[in-house]
């Protein structure tokens, strides 16, 4: 038998299956290619749980960053398109707004037409009124206590909303307050129609308040906003999946990425490992020790100036050594911030005040915060201190905590730095949540445990958060966070001027005056500003890290 015969025979016999196999292999090869067309961005957050998805996120501004801004819109937005200038306010679901010149507690907002929620229902003035009532009107069926805390405190003067017509709404404040448009960036618009469906689906036999609670729980698992991404899957405590909303109203922000997966991962080393192993494409706050490895493996580390202040807030209670302005200013001149910057591998920016030079609220303060130990020692000597007779200060700090950067090594660095200027610094190290609670109670409370300074980092996005709550006599503890009881008539007047200036430029000028005076009076030792580091795979493109707590995922692309 010729050897060629069986081969031909075999070929003939196996031709059909071979063709089928070739087709299958070809298809299999093509399938991943087709699958690869879907651009999926996987993000590891620092949060221990997925921030609440029902419209008003918890977990601080990380919540707004990941389950607020991508899924929802507010009447006003922060401009996140620029990395080289402070983030400013731009129109969101409101096209324009103006205060009533006769009664400055009333604002009229003109709404954007033709905007739809993810469930297809229209966004209009009724929706705005409904969303204001969800946190301010206890009588409303859909009032939700769990959303009140994170909302009402961020817009402390907002009282009510009234529909004027379908696309016009009036908002009323308790007092004239020019900060309202800035505050409203925190009020996200959830779909009333979608919530109503959830309410109707709740067991009818229960009281309305109980049904409303169930409706909000159901809404959180299947949310509907107007944002560039819509919710597609929610596994509590594990993952949140969003899909691109291709019908988004802002053409520039229609997502190019098809799907976003968010995973809570509170442990920094776990996040770093997840990035290095290819499990995620983006991690928040990578472990500082891992930065060189992350960069060496081809990942990109993004950071920028952030309105995130890491200071010592000083006590003005009776007997505090900080009552002497020379001591406060000397401490500000004695911190080797360039050394700290190097110590942190470049992951901080050197502060000159609460806001940086060039910011609309900067104001050219007469006191220049810099590293000048000679000048500091002279001030301390004038105040009666020396190496033999150092001033004793006690600072309440935490060992860890959200936004606290690296509190132990950073505070120890500052302790060493201040030693050369006759400061004898002691620490009272307490657990983060306890420190946070004490912050509300103030330096005169027993929880201060004799401390005359406290180290709690804070957001400086809007004027109230950045300055007012620390310098007004109306915000002394336990009302708000003026832990050190700093304030006087001059500062109250500067604040009133800013609050009563309704033109943006005038308001910014008033705020600049306030900021300049704060820096000059130095109720803080400004030590560092966080830069919000995050590491991403090189395949994530068009990343703009603005000077903000937030970042826009909608404009990003992926290879």
């Amino acid at each position, binding site marked *: 038998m010729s050897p060629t015969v069986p081969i031909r025979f075999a070929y003939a016999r196996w031709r059909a299956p071979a063709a089928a196999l070739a087709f299958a292999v070809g298809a299999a090869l093509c399938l991943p290619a087709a699958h690869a067309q879907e651009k999926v961005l996987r993000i590891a957050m620092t949060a*221990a*749980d997925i921030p*609440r998805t*029902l419209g008003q996120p*918890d*977990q*601080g501004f990380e919540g707004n960053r990941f389950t607020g801004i991508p899924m929802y819109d507010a009447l006003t937005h922060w401009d996140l398109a620029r990395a080289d200038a402070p983030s400013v306010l731009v129109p969101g679901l409101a096209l324009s707004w103006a205060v009533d010149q006769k009664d400055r507690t009333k604002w009229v907002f003109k709404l954007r037409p033709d905007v739809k929620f993810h469930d297809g229902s229209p966004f209009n003035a009724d929706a705005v009124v409904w969303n204001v009532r969800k946190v301010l009107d206890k009588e409303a069926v859909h009032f939700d*206590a*769990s959303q*009140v*805390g*994170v909302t*009402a*405190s*961020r817009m*402390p003067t907002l009282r009510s909303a009234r529909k004027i017509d379908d696309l016009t709404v009036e908002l009323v404040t308790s007092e004239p307050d020019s900060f309202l448009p800035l505050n409203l960036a925190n009020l996200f618009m959830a779909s009333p129609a979608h919530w109503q469906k959830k309410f109707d689906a709740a067991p009818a036999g229960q009281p309305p308040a109980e049904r409303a*609670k169930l409706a*909000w*729980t159901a809404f*959180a698992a299947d949310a509907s906003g107007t944002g560039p991404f819509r919710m597609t*899957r929610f*596994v*509590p*405590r*594990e*993952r949140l999946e969003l899909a691109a909303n291709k019908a988004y109203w802002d053409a520039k922000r229609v997502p190019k990425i098809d799907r976003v997966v968010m*995973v*809570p*991962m*509170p*442990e920094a*080393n*776990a996040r*770093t*490992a*997840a990035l*290095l*192993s*290819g*499990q995620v494409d983006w991690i928040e706050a990578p472990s500082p020790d891992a930065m060189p490895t992350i960069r060496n493996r081809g990942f990109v580390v993004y950071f920028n100036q952030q309105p995130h202040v890491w200071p010592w807030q000083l006590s003005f209670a009776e007997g505090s050594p900080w009552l002497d302005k020379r001591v406060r200013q000397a401490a500000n001149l004695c911190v080797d911030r360039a050394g700290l910057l190097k110590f942190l591998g470049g992951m901080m920016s050197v502060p000159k005040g609460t806001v940086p030079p060039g910011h609309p609220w900067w104001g050219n303060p007469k006191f220049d915060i810099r590293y000048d130990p000679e000048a500091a020692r002279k001030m301390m000597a004038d105040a009666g201190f020396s190496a033999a007779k150092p001033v004793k200060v006690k600072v309440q700090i935490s060992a860890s905590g959200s936004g606290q950067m690296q509190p132990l090594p950073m505070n120890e660095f500052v302790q060493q730095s201040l030693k050369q200027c006759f400061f004898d610094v002691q620490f009272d190290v307490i*657990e*983060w*949540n*306890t420190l*946070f*609670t004490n*912050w*509300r109670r103030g330096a005169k409370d027993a929880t201060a445990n004799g401390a005359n300074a406290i180290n*709690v980092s*804070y957001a400086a996005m809007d004027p*109230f*958060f950045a300055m007012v*709550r620390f310098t007004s006599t109306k*915000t002394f503890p*336990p*009302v*708000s*966070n003026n832990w050190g009881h700093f304030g006087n008539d001059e500062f109250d007047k500067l604040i009133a001027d800013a609050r009563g200036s309704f033109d943006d430029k005038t308001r910014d000028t008033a705020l600049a005056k306030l900021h300049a005076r704060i820096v000059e009076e130095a109720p803080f030792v400004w030590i560092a500003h966080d830069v919000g580091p995050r590491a991403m795979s090189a395949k994530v493109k068009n990343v703009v890290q603005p000077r903000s707590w937030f970042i826009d995922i909608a404009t990003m692309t992926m290879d």
Partner: protein
Amino acid sequence: MLATLLRRLFYALPIMAGVALVCFSLVHIAPGDPLVSILPPDASQDLQAQLRELYGLDRSLVEQFLSWVWRALQGDLGTSIASGRPVAAEVIKAVGNTLRLAAVATLIGFALGCLFGFVAGYFRDSWVDRAASVMSVLGVSVPHYWLGMVLVIVFSAQLMWLPATGAGPGGSGDWAWNWEHVQFMILPAITMSVIPMGIVARTVRALVAETLEQEFVAGLRARGLTHLGVFRHVVKNAAPTALAVMGLQLGYLLGGSILIETVFSWPGTGLLLNSAIFQRDLPLLQGTILVLALFFVVLNLIVDVVQTLLDPRIARA
């Protein structure tokens, strides 16, 4: 028998009540504000008071305790302050995930522990014994969260063989016993198994060594049994105690491990407790501790009953 069972059950009731009281008291004694997760630091006094009232935190502790126990008796552990979700559902899901991980870790720990223990005991004072003993001492001594991080660095970050975190490609909700999911369990299960492995190995080694000293072993050898034959008899003698020790270890593992589950982001009771502690989520914290504590009470009750069934002398005592 029924009387014994009822008596045991009766004894368990005050323990359960005590557990509930301790759970409630401990979380309320801890410093910090339970509203910290939903209330920003600059919240006004009015707002704080309003939320305290809405969440019932303005009532006396006795009132809060009685209300919590009454609802818990009806299966309602309350609602998480931070997430707004029912605590019972959260705890049940987390317990399921921890059970799965603990079962696999127990299997690994028991298999390796027995292997090292039997080998070390049988070849006592040889290099095999020393090597196996080193392994068991390491198992007991090495901090498991450190081992977890090392395993992640080697097998996930460097070699990229196994996922570093999570409980499945789509979360733990759609768990299946296939490679796609099981690969997520390998590193945490190995990390979790090292302590039981070390304890079982040391126990078994001592048991085997003790058994080998007994006269019946010399008799077996005198009758010409091979090493394997003698080994088989030794195993039979050591097995019940080894099983008892492993049972205890399983009990500990079922409580979850805060550190391991945090390192691997494994959504079990440990991670849930961690999250509840850091968010000061009192209902979630109370509910999780209560369920875990009652789990142990029930386990002890079952053990008591089984022991009574096996040994009637206990019932008569």
